[in-house]
């Protein structure tokens, strides 16, 4: 008989509709709490990351970078291995004259703006 195979059911223990809904509510509640905690943690993490990033940027701005040596053009001014003429009196004199001349050339007034012609009005008339 097929009825023999029917498992024994504890019909008394079958949860009622109210019990089911209350369990569902409990599950939903715990899920909500879990999601909320996750969201709070995520927000906190994000806030920390953003704040830290800003701080880093600010620190980049405020902290000056270490000074590096300015690259200079080698104009063969430096006497790397001095020749016989490095201390020659004539060469040193020319060098001094050229230096003085350089200063004069740099400071020369090429416009003489104080001597620009005056603005004069020669158009005299007594008519309206």
């Amino acid at each position, binding site marked *: 008989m097929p009825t023999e195979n029917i498992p024994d059911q504890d019909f008394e223990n079958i949860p009622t509709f109210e019990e089911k809904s209350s369990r569902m509510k409990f599950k939903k509640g715990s899920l909500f709490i879990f999601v909320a905690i996750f969201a709070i943690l995520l927000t906190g993490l994000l806030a920390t990351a953003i704040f830290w990033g800003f701080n880093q940027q600010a620190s980049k701005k405020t902290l000056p970078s270490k000074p590096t040596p300015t690259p200079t053009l080698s104009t063969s001014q430096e*006497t790397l291995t001095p020749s016989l003429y490095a201390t020659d009196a004539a060469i040193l004199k020319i060098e001094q004259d050229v230096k003085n*001349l350089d200063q004069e050339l740099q400071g020369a007034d*090429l416009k003489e703006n104080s001597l620009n012609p005056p603005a004069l009005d020669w158009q*005299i008339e007594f008519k309206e």
Partner: protein
Amino acid sequence: MKKILPVLLAFIFGFCFLKASLAQEFNFDRALNDYLYNYNLYRQSYNEYITAKESYLKYQTLNSKNEALAKTTQMLKNQDEVVKTYLTALRLKLSATPGLSAEEQNVLFLKLDSEVGWFKQHQNSLLSAATLEDLVDSAKKGAKQYQQTEILTYQTLGAILASKQMGFREKIAEQIKALKEKIGEIRLKGDKNTTTAERWLLEAENRLTRSQEKQFEAQQILAKMKATDYNKIKPYNQAQLNLEESHQYLKEANSYLKEILGELKNAD
């Protein structure tokens, strides 16, 4: 007699010293101050002339006409004084700037003196002006003459700027000559290779030539100026630009000399 002689000698010496010191004091700076002072006076009198003119045109009274006559005369006198003092300042600046040949300088001096003379005469003629019409005619004469004066002022300014370049060029040429002699001496001794230094020296000389060419271009522009040119400042500005380029070539030439000296001071 013995008492009078030392007093007389002291008086003569004192007079000569005073005269010499007064003559020395009149330099470019003082001439420039004179010009600026007179230009300020002119601007004040010009404003007064405008007010008097407006008053006359509005009221047409004898009193306002008289006032207009007085203020216009004063303004024109001041205008002539401005031109005279300005040309004098230019003359002194020219004489204080080395580089220009004596001949070129004298030609400009003569022209400047002649202009100063013209405006002096014009200023005196204003005293005989009795009517406003006389003053209008006088102003027209001044305007016509000033067209020539303007050319002279721009040419003189150009000469001042050019003479500076000439002065610098002479100095650089002297250094090139001295370096050439030294390099020749080193080459003869044979203890240092001078090929590079000699090649760079040629480059420096080349820069001097280009500087001279630019200066010549500037002088040509100024020489072509005409009294009828409406905008005289334009060619002057162009000439000034050419002179600035000329100066740049001189700077380069001098910088090459520094490099040559560095090369000579270094071992091969």
